[in-house]
């Protein structure tokens, strides 16, 4: 079972997000077994592990994206600021405005760059006027480090950008609704090394303003961008701790084998 640091009850912790005893089932198949973990505001948390270990599945429970899969079922508690996100009192629309997500493959909408970023503010009614909306769009693109590249062609289609620009556009789209947590599901796996470096740099800059959780299959990336690392294997959380410790002095044999490239 997990040998992660023993945790007290979720509500009392003051962590941004806390999961306790989370199981995820797809039909009869159990994809996640009894995972407990905390995510903090001032940290970038990385989920690593071999393919199929459940790290992406677990990430998707944090903003209830598994709801879109009919056969998926989640048990256990996941708290956002002490509120149970799976309780009936929690509105999934509100939740996803607070917990944003960036996907593995850049998925800008087939709309203009401006409309891509304005999408969230529009559906959540965040901008009272066109001027306010322009401000949100510019601010989000600036924070995503894309403004200088696209400011003269905001009406061009978002799908016409390069892969790395598209992914930064997706990040701008996510931060336009001013979320508290940003989930990133292998955001660089479809990008070349230069675009990857830009995204990693961006993650550094966004740190502190948002709690960031990033799933990656690239251990160097986890070591570069994160302060906390969680190692998943076969649906279990094997080890969770400071990134430095995980990579230099893993407590678990399985973690050590994975990090040294014995399997994965």
């Amino acid at each position, binding site marked *: 079972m997990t040998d992660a640091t023993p945790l007290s009850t979720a509500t009392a912790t003051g962590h941004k997000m806390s999961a306790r005893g989370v199981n995820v089932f797809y039909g009869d198949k159990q994809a996640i077994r009894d995972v407990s973990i905390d995510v903090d505001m001032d940290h970038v948390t990385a989920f690593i592990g071999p393919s199929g270990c459940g790290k992406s599945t677990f990430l998707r429970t944090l903003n209830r994206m598994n709801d879109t899969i009919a056969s998926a079922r989640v048990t256990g508690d996941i708290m956002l600021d002490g509120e149970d996100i799976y309780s009936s009192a929690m509105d999934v629309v509100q939740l996803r*405005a607070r917990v944003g997500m960036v996907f593995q493959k850049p998925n800008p909408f087939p709309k203009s760059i401006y409309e891509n970023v304005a999408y969230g503010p529009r559906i959540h009614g965040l901008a009272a006027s066109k001027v306010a909306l322009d401000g949100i769009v510019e601010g989000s693109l600036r924070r995503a480090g894309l403004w200088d590249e696209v400011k003269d062609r905001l009406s061009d289609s978002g799908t016409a950008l390069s892969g790395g620009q598209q992914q930064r556009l997706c990040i701008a789209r996510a931060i336009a609704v001013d979320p508290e947590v940003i989930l990133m599901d292998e955001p660089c796996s479809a990008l070349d090394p230069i675009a990857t470096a830009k995204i990693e740099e961006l993650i550094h800059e966004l740190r502190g303003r948002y709690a960031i959780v990033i799933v990656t299959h690239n251990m160097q990336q986890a070591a570069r961008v994160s302060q906390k690392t969680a190692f998943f294997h076969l649906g279990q959380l094997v080890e969770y701790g400071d990134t430095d410790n995980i990579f230099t002095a893993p407590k678990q044999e399985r973690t050590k084998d994975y990090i040294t490239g014995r399997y994965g």
Partner: protein
Amino acid sequence: MNVFALLFVVVGLGLIGWLTARARAVRFDRGGQKRLHSLPSQHGWYVAMWTVLPALLFVAAWTALSPALIRDQVLKAPAAAQLSDFAFERDTILGEARDVALGRADSTFDPTADALVAPMREAIAFYGWTGTAIAILLAFAGGAFAFSRISPAFRARTRVERGLMLILLVASLIAILTTIGIFLSLFWESIRFFAMVPPQDFLFSTHWSPQLIDPNNPGKSLGAVPLFWGTFFIGAVIAMLVAIPFGLMSAIYLTQYAAPRVRAWMKPMLEILAGVPTVVYGYFAALTVAPAVRDLAVHLGMPFASAESALAAGLVMGVMIIPFVSSLADDSIAAVPTAMRDGSLAMGATNSETISRVLLPAALPGVVAGVLLAVSRAIGETMIVVMAASGAANITLNPFESATTVTKQIVDLLTGESEFDSPKTLAAFALGLTLFVITLLLNIVALRVVKKYREAYE
């Protein structure tokens, strides 16, 4: 010899060719001097193809040619000297003679045909046997040629592949050639029509009354504008007002909201709607919907409302098209990547926001193409309008008034007694040609749109 017997013989020869060639190739193999390039059965297929295909092509060509040859031969007979020069009459008499000669009829109706029976029988027998002999000879020659080429190094495999490709090519050409043939036949008849009626009268004048044609100025009563208006009004306006919203909404429900179990029975039900014969829709339109529409019109203060209103035909046609629109819209919505949908949902958009702001705009080109195809089907649809639409050619915007369509008029022009060289009858071909061109253009535009759309996501 009967054509079927001949085919049987040719295929039999092909089978023999296959067996002997294969046996020979197997012997090469056992001889062991050299490895065979191709499998023994491929050698068999090579010989079989050479045996059967040239003979079959010859039989096809001969079947098309021999009636003309037979006719020429019979016309040379002394008994044919008194035959009329008028082709139509002459061919009728020759046809009678042929029926008797082939034993399909007991006696002739026209005494002049009697004298022709004997020469006819002779000609048929002569050309029949000649054709049979040549076909069998070709089969032997082809088989022998192919058989002589078999050797261990012979590349039968590549030849057979190429042969198969040619067969498939011919099969696909047949559909294309048929389309061209249909177009040409329409085209020639239309040219005859336009020789009598100036095209500008037909295409741009607004008076249509083919029953009262002034022989000196036929164009005056053959203005097709009311028909095209009626076709457009019933097929592209009223029917689409029904089909587009309902088809689109059912596609959205089925792809985005329906549980798999609901979808599993609802989709086949919709497809059953697509399989209902159009004549049944015609009954429904004429017997149920049309009276109801008329009663409604009377209720609304139109005491002389037509029982053959544009609305009745258009409504039922729209219902008929719903499954068509629905399944095309379903396909194009389903083709939008899931990542797009997830991206929107992850922003906190609701299901309906995701559909209206992301999925539908992304699927729009496919949906538009589907609608264009649906329009081209609706304006070509015949049975519903024949049964439910009126024959009166009006240009009207009132759906309770009667309107007629191109297809309905074509049926009216070609049924009943009519000569095939009057402007009235030939007008049907001109109408058909125009309709054909319009639907062709609609289909081309729709396919273009679909193609462009596919490029965006692959």
